[in-house]
C-alpha cells in the first residue's frame, strides 16, 4: 500500500471495495478510481492506441490521456472513462481497455516492433497493394485493432434529465478564482450559477498546501462554499462540466447526478443544462504541460501537479523514490510536497541554470538539486531509473520509480474558442491565451494566465466586480485575502534531444517528436494539417496535454515562431459528454410525442390496429376474429362502406379558419382555382401550389359566411399550410384585411360514408334536414349538437355518398359512439386508413404518394383547374417550359394485363418490348391496391404523356422485388367514373 498514514481529503472511516481487471482492492470515500489505484500500487493502467505501449497515470484530472478504463458491467458498462475523474463507489468494477489477452501481456504490443512503418500518415502510404488487400485484409485488421472500450450493444438502462438555467453570472470552475468571483457577485445580489467539474469546490487548493488568511486551502474553500450556499441567489452545481459556448450567451453543461446504477433508473444518471448567462467568467484553471524526452511515457512518469494532488488530496504516494524534472517554479512545489509527505526525493532536475528560492530548503533536506540539467532518458518497464544530462554534457543515472515532470502551464480556455476565435500566443507567459472571448465572457485566474494563487484570487474578485458593474449594479469593494505570493517562473523547454527511445507528444495516440518532424517534411506544415495527418490531439483527451507541445515542435521544424505556427480552435464538448445526456428523455418510444384523436380510446376498445401518420396515431384497420390477414380485414371494411355504411376518424386533417373582408381574395391567391365565388354553405375542392409551381397540398374550402371560410389540409401538411398562409397574408400581402387560425385540434371530424350514411346521420341528428335538396353534394351546414357548435359537410373521399361531421374535440368520442350506435341497424363498420386508401385509389384521388413535392397540378391531371383569370402562388413558374412539358410523367390508372398480377408501388414502367434501359423509363407506380370492386389489382401511376396513351401496354420493372408483368394504361377512376354514387 502506498496510502500515506495521515492527511488527505479522504474519509478513512468509509472504506470502499472495488475491482480493477478482476482483482479486488480497497479505497476510501473521496477517492477517485485513479487515486485508489495509486494507493494500491497499481502502476500499469492502460495501453496506448497505436503501439499498445504500457501506460501509467499521467495526470489527476480530466485531461488524462492514459488512465482510460471501462467502468461497470453488462448494459451499465461505460467505456473510455477517465479513472482520474471517476469517483470511487462501493462495488465499482473497472477494467482496462485496448489490450488482449491482458493488460500486462498485450499481443498487439508487437506493433511497436513495426513502429518504423506505423509513423504519421502510415495508412495513406501503405496497405494499398495489391488492390484487393486493403478491404479484404488490412482494413478489417486495422478495424479490429482500433477502438478503445466497447459498447455493450444493449440499450442504455439509465435515464437522463434536461434543465434550463438562467443567471446574471455563470462562473465556470470552482477553484480559488471562481470562488472569489462567485462570492463577490453573490454578495452583490447577482443571480449566480457556479459550475464545478469536480465533486468538491476548491480546485488547486485541494491539491496544495497553500494557506489563505491562515486557513488551509480546503478550509478556506469550504468556508466560501458555505457562504455561497447560504445565498438564495446563488446556485452551486458540483460535478458539472460546462462543455461548450453557443450563440446568444448560451452554455451547455452536464451534471453527473449518479455515477453508480440507481435501482430501476429511478434517478437520472446525468442532467443536461442549457444555461443562459448574461455574463460569464471562465475560471477553469490551467493544465500542466508534459516534457518531450525519450521514454517520457513509461509508467512512473507523471505530471508534477498530479503528484501533489495524489499526495496532498488523496494521501497516496505514486512512488517510493522520486525525482522531479521541471522547467517551472511550480514543479519545485511538488518536490516540496513529496518531501513533506515523507517520500524519498532523489533529485530535482531543472534546465534553468538559476534555481528558484525553494531549492535551498530541499538541498538542506538532502535532495540533489541539479540546475542546467535535463532528463534525457528513462529506463525500466515501469520506471526504474533516469539518465540525467548536465549542462557540461556529463550524464548520470539515478534510480527512481517516480518522475514528476512540469513543462509549464496551459490555461484551460478550450470553450472560449467555440465561437471561432483562435487563441494567441503570449511570449511573456509562454502559453496560448484567449484573444477574442465570446460575448459576455472573460477569463480569470490561471485560465487567464494568473498562475500565482494571490494573483488568481485578486483576478477572480475583479471578474466578479466587473460582472456586477457590467450589469449596472453598484460596484462592490473587493475583498482582501492574504495568501502566499508564489513564484511562477517558467522557461519553456519543448524538446530534450539525444535520447534513444521514442519521445511522446500525444500519449494516447502515440504521436512522437519524430512524427511531427516527418509531417513537416511531407508538407503538412499548418497546425490543421498536422492534426489531421498525425492525429495529434484527436484522442479522447483532445490534446489537452499534447497540443501545445506539438505545435511548438511543428514551429521548430518549420523554422517559425510558435506565434506564427498558431494553434487550433477547440470544438465542443470540452470533455466528452454522454450521448444519452444530450438526448435526454427523447429516446426510443419517447423519441417524439404521440398525438391521439379524441376517439382514440374508442378505437382501442374496438380492437383497432394503429399506424403512425406523422406524430398522429390513426386506426389502420379494425380486425375481426377469424380474419386471416390484414388484407382480408381491409377489403371487408371497403366492401362494407361501398355496400352499406362505415365511419372513419378523420380528425387528423388540418383545419384552418380564414376570416375577414379579404378572405376570399387571399384564398384566390392561395389556390389554383377560384374560391371567392364560392356560395355560402358550399364546399369546393382546391389545390395549393408552392411558388415554384409544385403542388403543396390539397383539401376543401367551405364558406360559412361572407367573410368566413374553413379550410382542410392533409394530415401531413397541416403545419406547413398554416405557415404558408401566414406568410402570404403577413409577408406577401400584408395590406389584406384577413385573419387565419389553425383549428385542427379544436374540431373532431368523422367521415360517415356509404349508401346508408344518411340513414345513420338522421338517427343521430334528428333535427337536421339531410335531404339532398337541403344538403346536396359539396354542401355544408353549421348546426348544434348537444348544445355545442357542429358542422356537417357533404364531401367524399371514398366516392360514395358521404358526410364529414365536425364537433368540438371534447365531444368527439361521444359523437363517434353515437354514430356507431345509430349505425348498428345498418351494419356500420369502423374503417381505418388502409380501407380509406383502397377506396381513394379506386377513385383515382391523389394522396401522399402523389403529393410528393415533385408533382405539378398538371402532373396530377388537375391542370385544367388552374385559373387563367387571376394570379395565384405558383402560377408564373408553372409556365416554365420544363413544367409545361407534356412529356412529364402524368397521373393515369393501370390495370394488369393478366388479372392475377400484382402491381407493386415503387415499380418502374418500361416499354412492352426490349431490354430495360434507363433512357426508356416511362414512369412509376405511386399507389396500388387490390380492388374488391373490380376483383384485381389496380394502380395509380405517373407515365410520360400518360393521358394520351390510354390502352397502351407497359412492362413492370421491379428487379428489386422480382415483380414482373404487363400493365395497361387506363383512366385513374376505376369505380363509378360518372360520379353518380357520390350524389346518391
Amino acid at each position: 500500500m502506498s496510502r500515506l498514514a495521515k492527511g488527505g481529503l479522504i474519509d478513512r472511516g468509509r472504506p470502499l471495495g472495488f475491482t480493477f481487471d478482476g482483482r479486488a482492492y480497497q479505497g476510501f470515500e473521496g477517492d477517485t478510481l485513479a487515486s485508489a489505484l495509486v494507493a494500491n500500487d497499481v502502476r500499469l493502467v492502460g495501453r496506448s492506441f497505436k503501439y499498445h505501449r504500457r501506460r501509467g497515470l499521467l495526470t489527476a484530472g480530466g485531461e488524462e490521456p492514459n488512465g482510460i478504463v471501462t467502468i461497470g458491467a453488462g448494459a451499465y458498462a461505460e467505456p473510455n472513462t477517465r479513472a482520474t475523474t471517476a469517483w470511487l463507489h462501493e462495488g465499482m468494477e473497472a477494467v482496462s481497455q485496448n489490450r488482449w489477452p491482458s493488460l500486462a501481456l498485450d499481443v498487439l504490443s508487437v506493433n511497436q516492433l513495426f513502429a518504423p512503418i506505423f509513423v504519421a500518415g502510415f495508412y495513406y502510404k501503405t496497405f494499398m497493394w495489391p488492390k484487393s488487400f486493403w478491404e479484404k485484409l488490412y482494413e478489417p485488421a486495422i478495424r479490429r485493432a482500433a477502438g478503445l472500450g466497447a459498447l455493450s450493444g444493449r440499450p442504455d438502462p439509465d435515464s437522463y434529465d434536461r434543465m434550463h438555467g438562467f443567471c446574471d453570472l455563470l462562473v465556470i470552475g470552482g477553484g480559488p478564482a471562481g470562488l472569489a468571483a462567485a462570492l463577490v457577485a453573490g454578495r452583490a445580489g447577482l443571480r449566480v450559477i457556479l459550475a464545478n467539474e469536480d465533486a468538491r469546490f476548491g480546485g488547486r487548493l485541494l491539491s496544495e498546501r497553500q494557506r489563505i488568511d491562515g486557513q488551509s486551502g480546503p478550509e478556506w474553500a469550504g468556508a466560501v462554499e458555505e457562504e455561497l450556499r447560504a445565498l438564495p441567489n446563488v446556485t452551486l452545481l458540483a460535478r458539472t462540466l460546462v462543455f461548450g459556448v453557443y450563440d446568444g450567451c448560451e452554455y451547455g453543461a452536464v451534471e453527473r447526478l449518479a455515477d453508480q446504477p440507481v435501482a430501476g433508473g429511478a434517478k437520472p444518471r446525468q442532467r443536461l443544462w442549457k444555461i443562459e448567462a448574461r455574463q460569464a467568467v471562465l475560471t477553469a484553471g490551467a493544465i500542466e504541460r508534459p516534457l518531450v524526452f525519450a521514454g517520457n511515457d513509461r509508467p512512473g512518469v507523471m505530471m508534477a501537479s498530479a503528484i501533489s494532488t495524489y499526495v496532498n488530496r488523496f494521501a497516496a504516494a505514486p512512488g517510493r523514490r522520486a525525482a522531479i524534472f521541471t522547467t517551472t517554479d511550480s514543479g519545485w512545489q511538488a518536490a516540496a510536497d513529496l518531501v513533506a509527505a515523507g517520500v524519498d526525493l532523489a533529485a530535482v532536475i531543472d534546465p534553468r541554470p538559476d534555481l528558484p528560492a525553494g531549492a535551498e530548503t530541499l538541498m538542506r533536506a538532502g535532495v540533489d538539486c541539479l540546475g542546467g540539467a535535463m532528463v534525457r532518458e528513462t529506463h525500466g518497464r515501469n520506471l526504474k531509473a533516469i539518465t540525467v544530462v548536465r549542462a557540461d554534457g556529463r550524464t548520470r543515472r539515478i534510480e527512481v520509480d517516480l518522475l514528476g515532470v512540469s513543462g509549464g502551464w496551459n490555461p484551460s480556455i478550450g470553450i472560449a474558442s467555440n465561437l471561432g476565435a483562435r487563441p494567441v500566443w503570449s511570449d511573456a507567459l509562454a502559453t496560448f491565451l484567449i484573444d477574442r472571448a465570446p460575448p459576455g465572457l472573460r477569463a480569470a485566474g490561471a485560465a487567464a494566465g494568473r498562475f500565482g494563487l494571490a494573483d488568481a484570487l485578486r483576478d477572480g474578485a475583479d471578474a466578479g466586480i466587473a460582472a456586477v458593474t457590467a450589469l449596472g449594479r453598484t460596484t462592490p469593494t473587493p475583498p482582501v485575502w492574504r495568501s502566499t505570493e508564489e513564484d511562477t517562473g517558467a522557461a519553456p523547454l519543448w524538446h530534450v534531444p539525444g535520447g534513444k527511445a521514442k519521445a511522446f507528444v500525444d500519449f494516447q495516440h502515440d504521436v512522437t517528436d519524430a512524427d511531427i518532424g516527418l509531417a513537416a517534411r511531407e508538407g503538412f506544415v499548418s497546425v490543421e494539417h498536422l492534426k489531421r495527418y498525425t492525429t495529434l490531439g484527436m484522442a479522447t483527451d483532445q490534446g489537452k496535454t499534447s497540443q501545445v507541445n506539438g505545435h511548438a515542435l511543428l514551429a521548430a521544424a518549420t523554422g517559425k515562431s510558435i506565434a506564427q505556427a498558431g494553434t487550433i480552435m477547440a470544438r465542443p464538448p470540452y470533455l466528452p459528454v454522454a450521448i444519452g445526456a444530450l438526448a435526454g428523455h427523447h429516446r426510443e418510444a419517447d423519441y417524439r410525442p404521440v398525438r391521439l384523436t379524441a376517439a382514440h380510446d374508442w378505437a382501442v376498445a374496438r380492437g383497432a390496429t394503429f399506424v403512425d401518420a406523422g406524430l398522429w396515431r390513426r386506426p389502420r384497420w379494425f380486425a375481426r376474429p377469424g380474419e386471416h390477414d390484414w388484407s382480408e380485414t381491409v377489403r371487408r371494411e371497403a366492401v362494407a362502406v361501398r355496400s352499406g355504411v362505415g365511419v372513419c376518424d378523420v380528425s387528423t386533417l388540418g383545419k384552418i379558419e380564414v376570416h375577414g373582408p379579404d378572405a376570399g381574395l387571399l384564398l384566390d391567391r392561395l389556390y389554383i382555382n377560384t374560391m371567392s365565388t364560392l356560395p355560402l354553405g358550399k364546399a369546393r375542392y382546391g389545390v395549393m401550389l408552392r411558388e415554384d409551381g409544385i403542388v403543396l397540398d390539397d383539401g376543401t374550402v367551405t364558406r360559412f359566411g361572407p367573410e368566413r371560410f374553413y379550410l382542410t389540409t392533409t394530415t401531413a401538411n397541416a403545419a406547413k399550410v398554416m405557415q404558408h398562409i401566414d406568410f402570404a397574408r403577413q409577408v406577401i400581402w400584408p395590406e389584406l384585411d384577413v385573419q387565419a387560425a389553425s383549428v385542427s385540434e379544436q374540431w373532431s371530424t368523422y367521415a360517415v360514408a356509404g349508401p346508408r350514411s344518411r340513414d345513420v346521420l338522421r338517427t343521430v341528428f334528428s333535427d337536421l334536414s339531410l335531404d339532398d335538396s337541403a344538403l346536396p353534394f359539396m354542401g355544408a351546414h353549421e348546426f348544434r349538437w348537444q348544445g355545442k357548435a357542429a358542422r356537417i359537410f357533404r364531401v367524399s373521399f371514398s366516392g360514395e355518398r358521404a358526410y364529414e361531421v365536425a364537433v368540438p374535440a371534447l365531444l368527439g368520442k361521444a359523437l363517434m359512439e353515437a354514430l356507431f350506435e345509430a349505425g348498428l341497424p345498418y351494419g356500420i363498420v369502423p374503417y381505418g386508413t388502409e380501407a380509406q386508401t383502397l377506396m381513394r385509389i379506386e377513385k383515382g384521388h391523389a394522396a401522399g404518394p402523389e403529393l410528393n413535392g415533385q408533382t405539378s397540378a398538371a402532373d396530377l391531371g388537375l391542370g385544367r383547374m388552374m385559373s387563367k383569370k387571376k394570379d395565384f402562388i405558383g402560377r408564373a413558374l408553372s409556365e416554365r417550359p420544363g413544367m409545361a412539358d407534356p412529356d412529364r410523367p402524368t397521373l393515369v390508372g393501370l390495370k394488369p394485363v393478366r388479372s392475377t398480377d400484382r402491381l407493386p408501388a415503387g415499380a418502374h414502367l418500361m416499354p412492352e418490348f426490349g431490354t430495360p434501359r434507363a433512357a426508356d423509363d416511362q414512369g412509376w407506380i405511386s399507389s396500388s391496391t387490390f380492388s374488391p370492386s373490380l376483383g384485381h389489382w389496380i394502380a395509380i401511376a405517373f407515365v410520360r404523356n400518360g393521358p394520351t396513351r390510354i390502352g397502351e401496354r407497359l412492362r413492370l420493372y421491379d428487379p428489386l422485388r422480382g415483380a414482373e408483368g404487363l400493365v395497361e394504361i387506363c383512366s385513374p377512376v376505376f369505380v363509378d367514373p360518372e360520379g353518380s354514387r357520390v350524389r346518391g
Partner: protein
Amino acid sequence: MRIPCPYCGNRDSSEFSYRSDAAPVRPAADAPVAAFHDYVYLRDNPAGPISEHWYHAAGCRAWLVVTRDTRTHEISAAAIAQEFVR
C-alpha cells in the same frame, strides 16, 4: 441562439421556422416569369448582416424580419414582418 420576438420576448431559435432572405419581393402579377425566377431562386447570400424571415411557429405565429450577421450569428434587430417597412 435566441430571437427577440417583439411579441414574446427572447425565445429559443428552435421555436421558429426559417425562411431566409427577407429582401426579395414577390413580383407583380403581370411581371415576366423571369422576375418570378429571380424572386424564388436567386439569393445574395451575404457573409455579414442579413434581414431574414423567421416564423414564430411555436409561439405567436408572427413572421418576423430578423437582422442577423451570418458570420457571427449576432442578432441586431427583430420586427414584425407585417409592420416592417422595407
